[in-house]
């Protein structure tokens, strides 16, 4: 076992001076300065690899009486064959619907008795299982988690119900503009690469059988292709003992999924319109493919995103919400996966300001590459990233989720401690380079879900519009 000890610090010491930067109006004289920074306690992660290859990371956090466990198994929806894409998600959803020793109902009732929850789903690169419980019930939680991960039976009746419900859920989701927008956006960005996947199709649902799900599970769930991350009020050695009992005799029976080819790094500029009768808003997506979570640009891209659209004080939010009143909930996200990533700006705007909103978004995107960010804005974004990173990782669920995702993406747990120092090293010139490289308006794809006639006229102000059903 090795123990990783690293001290984190937000390094916010110069912030009061930073806030008095030149490009913004002065702050009120009476406003008190920020206080002294306090160091963040060291991450104290215990790491061990079981003889069967299962990686285990444990972060003890005494006091608050709950524990969370996250199991990630390599190979998600993107690892499914093209014509069966999304079957991993269907399989994941059925893990807690019956095992060799428990029925679906018994699993639900046992979890309830632990004060617990257990969910399973598939991302592009992995299948995730997340369980939580009152801390004194950790051994039972691990036993249940191991049972659903290792011995699911995919009972015929449960598979039938899940298939019927998935088909109807798809129908229900078709009514949501965000669902339609995300689907078209992913396809526009990633083309035939598996990252273009956003939702299972009815054909794929219909083709699934208990046998095909069992086979997929057997192929994917290998201990040497998995990580188990725990956090909460626990004793590390006792937790390792309980993990050994629940997962120790899990044996590998095959290879993990083949690595994916790199995802596209660029896309064609296009204006895509998905007609939605009765829409009173245009649901807008603007973005492009970017880089994987391990790429050196990933952290600077996150920081540049805070400045452009990823925070309330960001340029796009201030512009199209606080100045123009075009929208309630604009936002932006830089997402990094194992072999690629994407940048996306989203906004729901009233139909008649669709073009006006896009014009402002394009302006703000281009400005990131053509002018340098001021010192106050840069420092503020760094503090915001540090603070929100700390905020999220206060929560057990977020901490173990972050760590498990690091493992999937090929990052070491130390990346958690390195994140804030890396953010703090980014310069204004680097932000501008990121802007030029990833935010130029001419390189973005635009997807709009909305009123066909009105939104088309709005979009045609920028060029040809591709109208497509989905």
């Amino acid at each position, binding site marked *: 076992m090795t123990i990783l000890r690293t001290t984190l610090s937000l390094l916010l010491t110069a912030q009061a001076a930073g806030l008095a930067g030149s490009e913004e109006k002065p702050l*009120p004289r009476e406003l008190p300065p920020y206080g002294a920074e*306090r160091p963040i306690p060291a991450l104290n992660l215990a790491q061990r690899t079981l003889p069967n290859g299962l990686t285990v990371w444990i972060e003890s956090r005494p006091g608050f009486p709950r524990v969370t466990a996250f199991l990630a198994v390599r190979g998600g929806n993107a690892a499914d064959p093209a014509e069966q894409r999304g079957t991993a998600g269907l399989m994941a959803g059925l893990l807690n619907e019956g095992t060799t020793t428990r029925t679906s*109902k018994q699993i639900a009732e046992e979890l309830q008795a632990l*004060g617990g929850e257990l969910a399973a789903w598939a991302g592009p690169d992995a299948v995730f299982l997340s369980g939580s419980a*009152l801390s004194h019930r950790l051994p039972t939680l691990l036993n249940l988690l191991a049972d659903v991960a290792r011995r699911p039976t995919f009972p015929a009746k449960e598979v039938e119900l899940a298939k019927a419900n998935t088909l109807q*859920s798809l129908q229900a989701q078709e009514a949501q503009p965000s669902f339609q927008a995300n689907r078209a956006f992913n396809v526009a960005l990633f083309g035939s690469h598996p990252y273009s996947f956003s939702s299972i199709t009815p054909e794929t649902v219909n083709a699934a059988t208990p046998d095909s799900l069992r086979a997929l599970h057997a192929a994917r769930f290998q201990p040497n292709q998995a990580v188990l991350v725990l956090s909460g009020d626990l004793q590390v050695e006792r937790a390792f003992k309980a993990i050994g009992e629940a997962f120790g005799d899990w044996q590998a029976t095959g290879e993990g999924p083949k690595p994916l080819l790199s995802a596209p790094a660029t896309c064609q500029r296009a204006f895509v319109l998905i007609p939605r*009768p009765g829409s009173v808003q245009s649901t807008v997506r603007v973005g492009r493919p970017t880089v994987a979570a391990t790429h050196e640009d990933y952290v600077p891209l996150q920081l540049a995103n805070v400045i452009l659209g990823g925070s309330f*004080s960001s340029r796009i939010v201030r512009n199209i919400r606080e100045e123009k009143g075009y929208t309630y909930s604009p936002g932006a996200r830089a997402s990094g996966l194992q072999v690629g990533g994407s940048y996306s700006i989203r906004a729901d705007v009233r139909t008649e300001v669709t073009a006006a909103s896009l014009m402002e978004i394009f302006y703000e995107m281009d400005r990131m590459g053509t002018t340098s960010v001021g010192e106050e804005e840069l420092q503020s974004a760094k503090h915001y990233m540090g603070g929100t990173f700390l905020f999220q990782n206060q929560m057990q669920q977020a901490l173990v989720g972050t760590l498990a995702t690091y493992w999937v993406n090929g990052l070491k747990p130390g990346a958690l401690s390195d994140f804030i120092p890396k953010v703090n090293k980014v310069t204004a010139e680097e932000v501008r380079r990121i802007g030029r490289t990833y935010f130029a308006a001419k390189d973005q794809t635009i997807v709009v879900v909305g009123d066909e006639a009105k939104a088309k006229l709005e979009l045609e102000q920028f060029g040809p519009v591709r109208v497509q059903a989905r």
Partner: protein
Amino acid sequence: MRLGFLPCFLLGAALLAGPSETKLPAWKVPLEVKTLPNGLTVVVSEDHSLPTVGISMVYRVGMRLEPKGRTGFAHLFEHMMFEGTPVAPKGVFDRVIQGGGGINNGSTRYDYTNYIESAPVSALEPILWLEADRLKALDFSAKNLKNQQEVVKEEIRLNVKNRPYGSWWLDLPAAAYTRWETSHDGYGSFEDLDRADLKDVEAFHRTYYTPSNAVLGIAGDVKPAEAFALVEKYFGALPTRPKPAVPDLKEPLGTAEVRQVKTDPLARVPALAVAWKVMTRGSRDHAPAAVLAELLAGGDASRIYLGLVKGKELLLEVSGGLNFPLGNAWDFDGQTMFGLFSLYKPNADADKVLAGLDEIIANVATQGVPAAELERTKTKMLSDFYSGLEIPLYRADALAKAQSLWGSAAQLNEIPRLIEGVTSEDLKRVAVTYLTRANRTVIDYHLAPVKP
């Protein structure tokens, strides 16, 4: 306000001594409470595990107290609280909090409006200054009001008008209650929102945004004495006005079922919303109703999930609870509802779903609940209750709401005992009293006919 809980306390304390509960963790939120001479009550909960703080400023005014004929005004006003003050113009608030590594938000509910921040502890002092500053006065600017009228209308388009069943949580109280205060659309009609003017904003601020009507919760890496001193420094000199009276708005239980059918042109799958008016906050039926709601609708082991999603396979999905969806079983005042929202399947219709619900309710009402099921339902509630207090922000907010709505932050730590004290007989009584057909409101959302 505390008295309503007393019988439950005693019962809870007696049960806690029993052997079966000894294994459950008995975790409590530390807290200290102080009221300033101007009436501002401050609740502080220390936790030094990470250098962060959570802050929640709760005002005892919500949708139920907005001016008559001004639907959506309390929420529009909440937006105006972020639009600057005479001293700190628009933009300063977010700039200072973001620059300090923090996040912030606000929300408007039936009985309260809260403003929350979470940040590294180094930003505590500027944040307290900002909260005091906007309690003192706002920048009553026509330009900013116009801007936020547009933003709020976009919010309503996004959350109500452009999504299927977007109005269900507004439709239920509209159908179930008769008083304007409890039945009106708290998000607001566009006509009313457009009519709001600066005089309304100023009057609302003057009436409800006064120290005596506010509670400030602070949790995290700060000692209570330090926190109280900072609050004294920034809020102590604020003048006070009397705390506005809270009218009694409760209505009798229903005497005849209210049932409506609505056509939703955006929906592709039909839906059913059902609600029952229930007891008032702090009554002896409160904790039993909370436990019953969990037993019926709280996740994959609940009776409605097992009976109608599984079992009869009538529902595609269902969610629900006490005070659902605008809060949890504890953060309300006055009267609330036990509400359910479900999508139903092609083989189902409203009558079949309601018959299924009636059967499930009748079973509890006549048979009670087996001890093991009751026990694990309570364990899950306890665990969820703890989850809701995991980080300083949640603690500050829950404590401030308990102080504002219940008159006692310390009551928060009594919730585990209130839950523990609930018996099978209590559940029978509550099912018989409230979950009746006569007291039920049902809204059935049909699809628009397909155009040829």
